[in-house]
C-alpha cells in the first residue's frame, strides 16, 4: 500500500537540510522514532502527592504503547508531558534520542501528532483545511499540501472530492475522529499521541474505528502512545501496555500476552480483570493453533472461520452445547476440529512458560493456569 513516497522523500530531505534529526526514515517509508521516558515525574505546586512518579519506559520505533489505568493514575498527564503541554518536574523524555526539553516546544509539537477525544477539529475550517494545518505551519508548498491531504483522506476512507470541502459540523462522529487522525498524520510525525480517541464513540462504531486504525498502523507503522481507561481496548490496540496505578506509578509494562499470563501483582491482576484467561484467548486466532484432525465424516456442532479468535470460538462452542466445532478456512475447506480440551491445553502451555516481560516480573502464572483449567472444567460440567 503506497504511503505517498514523494511526500515522504521530500520530507526527509527537507528536514535533513534543516538539521533536524533523521528518525531512521528510509526512502519512501513513514517516519517513526523511539520514545524513551527516563525517571519522569510531575509534581504540581502545592500538592502533597505527585501526579507522576519516576516513570521509565521505552517505546521502540513503530510500536503502539498503550497507557492504561484507573482515573487519577496520571495517564493523560504522562502523555501531555511528552509534547510539553504540561511541564515536567523531574527526569527526561527523549524522542529519537534527543531530549524534548532541549527543543522549542512549538517546533516539537509540530513533529508530534496529537489526537484527543473530542477531536478538537476547527469548526470554522473545512476538512481539507483542518488536515492541512501542521503542513501549513511548517511552510510546505501548496501542491505538496494538496497532494498530502488527498492521500490522507484516501487512507482514512473519505472521498477527497466529496468530503474535503465539508465542515466538521456536517460529519458524523466516526468521520470526525478519522479526520482527527488524518490531521495528526499530516506532517508525517515520528510520534503520535492519542488521548482516548475513540472514547466518545458508540461501541459498534468504536470497534470499527479500532480495526480501521489497526490496519492503518500496519501501513504507516508510527510510534504511538495511546491513552485509554479500557483494558480491552488496551489489549486490542497495544503492542505493549503500560499499566499505571494511582499516583502515576508504573505497575507493569509488557506485551498484552505477558500481562495477561503473568500479571505483576494484585493490582494488575485485578485491573486486568478476573476473566483474564478468557481475555488471553482473544489474542490468538484459530489458524495459529494445532487443531485436532477431523474424525472422518463426523462434523462438529458448528463451523468457525480460521481467522476467528479462540475466544469467539469458545463462545460458539458454549452456545453449541460444549461440543467440538469444525474450523474452516476462507474457502470453506475443513482445517480441523476445535475442542474444549484443546483450549485448556493452550491455556496451560502459555501459563507454564516463564515470564518474559521487560521488567522480568515473575507473576501469578501458575494461579492463572489453575483458574483457566477451572473455567474449562466447569464449562465441561455444564455441557453434560
Amino acid at each position, binding site marked *: 500500500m503506497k504511503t505517498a513516497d514523494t511526500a515522504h522523500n521530500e520530507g526527509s530531505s527537507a528536514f535533513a537540510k534543516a538539521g533536524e534529526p533523521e528518525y531512521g526514515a528510509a526512502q519512501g517509508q513513514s517516519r517513526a522514532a523511539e520514545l524513551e521516558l527516563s525517571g519522569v515525574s510531575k509534581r504540581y505546586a502545592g500538592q502533597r502527592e505527585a501526579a507522576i512518579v519516576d516513570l521509565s519506559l521505552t517505546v521502540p520505533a513503530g510500536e503502539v504503547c498503550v497507557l492504561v489505568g484507573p482515573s487519577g493514575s496520571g495517564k493523560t498527564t504522562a502523555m501531555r508531558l511528552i509534547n510539553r503541554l504540561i511541564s515536567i518536574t523531574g527526569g527526561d523524555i527523549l524522542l529519537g534520542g534527543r531530549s524534548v526539553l532541549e527543543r522549542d516546544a512549538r517546533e516539537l509539537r509540530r513533529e508530534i501528532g496529537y489526537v484527543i*477525544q473530542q477531536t478538537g477539529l476547527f469548526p*470554522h475550517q473545512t476538512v481539507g483545511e483542518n488536515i492541512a494545518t501542521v503542513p501549513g505551519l511548517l511552510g510546505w508548498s501548496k501542491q505538496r499540501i494538496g497532494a498530502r491531504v488527498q492521500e490522507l483522506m484516501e487512507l482514512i476512507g473519505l472521498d477527497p472530492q466529496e468530503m474535503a470541502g465539508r465542515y466538521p459540523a456536517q460529519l458524523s462522529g466516526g468521520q470526525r475522529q478519522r479526520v482527527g487522525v488524518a490531521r495528526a498524520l499530516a506532517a508525517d510525525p515520528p510520534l503520535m499521541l492519542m488521548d482516548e480517541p475513540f472514547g466518545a464513540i458508540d461501541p459498534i462504531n468504536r470497534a470499527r474505528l479500532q480495526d480501521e486504525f489497526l490496519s492503518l498502523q500496519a501501513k504507516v507503522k508510527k510510534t504511538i502512545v495511546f491513552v485509554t481507561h479500557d483494558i480491552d481496548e488496551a489489549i486490542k490496540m497495544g503492542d505493549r501496555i503500560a499499566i499505571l496505578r494511582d499516583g502515576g506509578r508504573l505497575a507493569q509494562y509488557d506485551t498484552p500476552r505477558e500481562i495477561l499470563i503473568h500479571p505483576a501483582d494484585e493490582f494488575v491482576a485485578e485491573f486486568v480483570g478476573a476473566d483474564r484467561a478468557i481475555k488471553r484467548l482473544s489474542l490468538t486466532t484459530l489458524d495459529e493453533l494445532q487443531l485436532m484432525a477431523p474424525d472422518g465424516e463426523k462434523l462438529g456442532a458448528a463451523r468457525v472461520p480460521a481467522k476467528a479468535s479462540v475466544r469467539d470460538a469458545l463462545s460458539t462452542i458454549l452456545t453449541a452445547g460444549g461440543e467440538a466445532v469444525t474450523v474452516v478456512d476462507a474457502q470453506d475447506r475443513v482445517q480441523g476440529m476445535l475442542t474444549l480440551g484443546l483450549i485448556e491445553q493452550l491455556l496451560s502451555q502459555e501459563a507454564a512458560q516463564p515470564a518474559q516481560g521487560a521488567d522480568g516480573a515473575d507473576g501469578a502464572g501458575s494461579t492463572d493456569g489453575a483458574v483457566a483449567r477451572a473455567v474449562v472444567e466447569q464449562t465441561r460440567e455444564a455441557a453434560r
Partner: protein
Amino acid sequence: MTGALTPAIAAAGPVIPNYGSQSSKCVVHNHFFCTDWVSHNWGSILWPALRQHVLLTAIAVAIGFAISLALALAAHRYRVIERPTVLITTFLYTIPALALFELLVAPVGANIYSAEIALVSYTLLILFRNILTGLREVPEEVLDAAEGMGMTRRQALLRVELPLALPAIVAGLRIAVVTIIALATIVYTIYDKGLGVPIHAALGEGPFKTELIAAGGLTVLLALGADALLVLAQRALTPWARAKGG
C-alpha cells in the same frame, strides 16, 4: 416653547420653508411630506448631513472597536482586567448623551473631539463584552488541539480564536453601530454636523414636517441599512455556521 439655539447653531441661521424662490404650496402649508422640497434640498442639506452622520458613526465605531478589542484581548489573557473595565464602561454608558456631550465641552471644547469621545464611550461596553464573550465561547478542546499541534499563541489567536469569535463580535458591532447612529443625532448640540442639524432646524420652524421626516427617516434607514449590511457580512465571513447536516 422652544429654547434659544445654542451658539453653534445660531450661526447657521434658521431654515425658512419658503426657501429661495421655490416655495410650493405643499411646503407653505406644511403638508406631511413634500417631495419637491426634498429633491430641491437634497444636495444642500440632506446629503451633506447624511455624509457627516456616516462619518461620525464610522470614526466612533472604528476607534471604539480598536480600544475594545485591545481591552478584550487583555482581559482574555489576564482575568483581573475584566471587572474594572466593565465597571468603567458601564459608568460611561449610563450617562445620558446630552449630558456627556456638555460635560466634555468644558475640557475639550465644542468640537468634533468632544463628539467623538462621547460616541466612542458608548460603544465600549457593548463591544468589549461581546468580543470577550466571543473569545470565551471557543470550545476548550479546539484550543487544546491548536496548542497541541504546535501553534504559537498568536497563531492560535489569529487562526482559531478570533474567527470563531466572529459571530459574537459582529453581533456587538451591529448593536454598537445602530446605537451610535441614533445617538449621533444629538451631536448637533455641541458640533453642527450630522442628521441632527436638519432635525433641529426643522423643529425651529413650525415644526417643518417634510424636513423632519426626511432627516429622521434617513437616520432610521441608515441604521437599518447598516444593520442589514453587517448581517450580510457576518454570513459571508462565517460559512461554517450555516453548513449543518451532511
